[in-house]
């Protein structure tokens, strides 16, 4: 399994990117029925897929997409402040040390065990990335079922407000503190990274 960490500005034609946008279409549009734009009926790409975004993409040895997440800087417009400010009781957390996790995507071509392995590796990669880049906390919006799973990863989560019905979905906003202790908390919750030392298999695209 390989991890690519890349800004949105890198090679838009890159096969890894295409395979991620395709997987996102299958997950968020086909499976979860989100009302989000689709490019050329194949790729799920929205207004936040810009050079400012950072992507963590896991692929298999052949370069096929296994899982991915998009990080948005919170000093610029992002999902929580643009689409769901009502999910925050106070002001929307923002700053250089705060990034928003969006489009956490596990490729549906995997079976439950493979998805679990990919998920655990991706969560560990998010924690390692935050530690390497001085990100002190992540924020995120989730449907309640997914939010329950995010809590179960064992890291340190706090609600930003009360859950609210938005259209057909019940959504909540969370903040996740990332500290040196986070990798241990994830391991204690049973999350094991398939990449032995997250730094090792990382391909940093330009």
């Amino acid at each position, binding site marked *: 399994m390989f991890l690519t960490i890349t800004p949105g500005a890198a090679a838009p034609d890159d096969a890894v990117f295409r395979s991620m946008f395709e997987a996102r279409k299958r997950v968020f549009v086909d499976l979860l029925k989100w009302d989000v734009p689709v490019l050329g009926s194949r790729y799920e790409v929205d207004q936040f897929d810009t050079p400012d975004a950072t992507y963590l993409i896991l692929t298999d040895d052949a370069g096929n997409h296994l899982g991915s997440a998009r990080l948005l800087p919170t000093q610029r417009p992002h999902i929580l402040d643009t689409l769901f400010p*009502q999910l925050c009781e106070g002001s929307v957390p923002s700053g250089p040390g705060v990034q928003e996790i969006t489009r956490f995507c596990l490729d549906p071509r995997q*079976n439950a065990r493979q998805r679990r392995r990919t998920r655990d590796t991706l969560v560990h990669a998010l924690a390692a990335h935050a530690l390497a880049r001085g990100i002190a906390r992540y924020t995120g919006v989730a449907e309640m079922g997914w939010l329950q799973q995010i809590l179960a990863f064992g890291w340190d989560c706090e609600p930003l407000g009360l859950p609210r019905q*938005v259209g057909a979905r019940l959504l909540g906003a969370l903040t996740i503190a990332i500290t040196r202790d986070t990798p241990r908390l994830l391991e204690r919750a049973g999350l094991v990274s398939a990449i032995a030392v997250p730094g090792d298999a990382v391909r940093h695209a330009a």
Partner: protein
Amino acid sequence: MHIKANRGSGGLGNAPSVDAEEMTSLAVANEFLELTRCATTNDQLRDALATICESMGFEYFALTHHVDPHATEAQVIRLHNYPKPWVEWFDDHRLGVSDPVHRASRVTDAGFCWARVPSMIKLTAADREVLAMARREGVGDGFTVPAHIPGEASGSCSFAVGPGKEVPAHYVPVAQLVGTFAFDTARRVNRIRCVDTEGPPLTGRQRDCVLWAARGKTNWETAQILGLSEETVMQHHKQARERLDIPNKPMLVVRALYDGYICFDDVFRP
């Protein structure tokens, strides 16, 4: 995307306007989260649930978690303050699995009021008797927060009021948040882990054969569909059963669904 602002909050693009009363209810939730953040025992969690339950205007709480029945140490978390006669009746009738509210919580991720249960699952005559019996024993309407963690048995956290009383609607979002976090605290306190059985996973062909069995096809039919011999299909089934340590085909199909090798949509909406 259509955004439905609710309960007087700011809509799209506006600064969130939170009324004073709602601030109070989030404060109630935060108080609970503070209490449970350091909780290390079920007693501490039970006390915190009792406190928040009262603050929200509910009379009863019940947090239940059934661990994977395949796990070696079958352990059931159950924290509640239901009336004793109701709990005895519930256990005598072995409702842990078949209780209509528990069953309804399997079909949704979001919390629901019990009044909605008849629109969520098909109720049998026995289910109606369960609900009537609960009312007779002092448990009326309620709100249940389901909890589904992949690889673990489902659970839920419920809050209820006495018969003839209404669920305090204002506190339903708090109950949702509290239920979600309470369930996670229960997992942490009781060291519930995902059960990730070791051993080789099914091969693609084994999975295909199990999927066609789930769709009701015989080995011969599956062989025709997949372009294999009937003998080969039988071998795939046999090896799949051996890999998952399953004695027969119906159980193999159920286990494959439970483990996520195949999903209900594959079976019913191919």
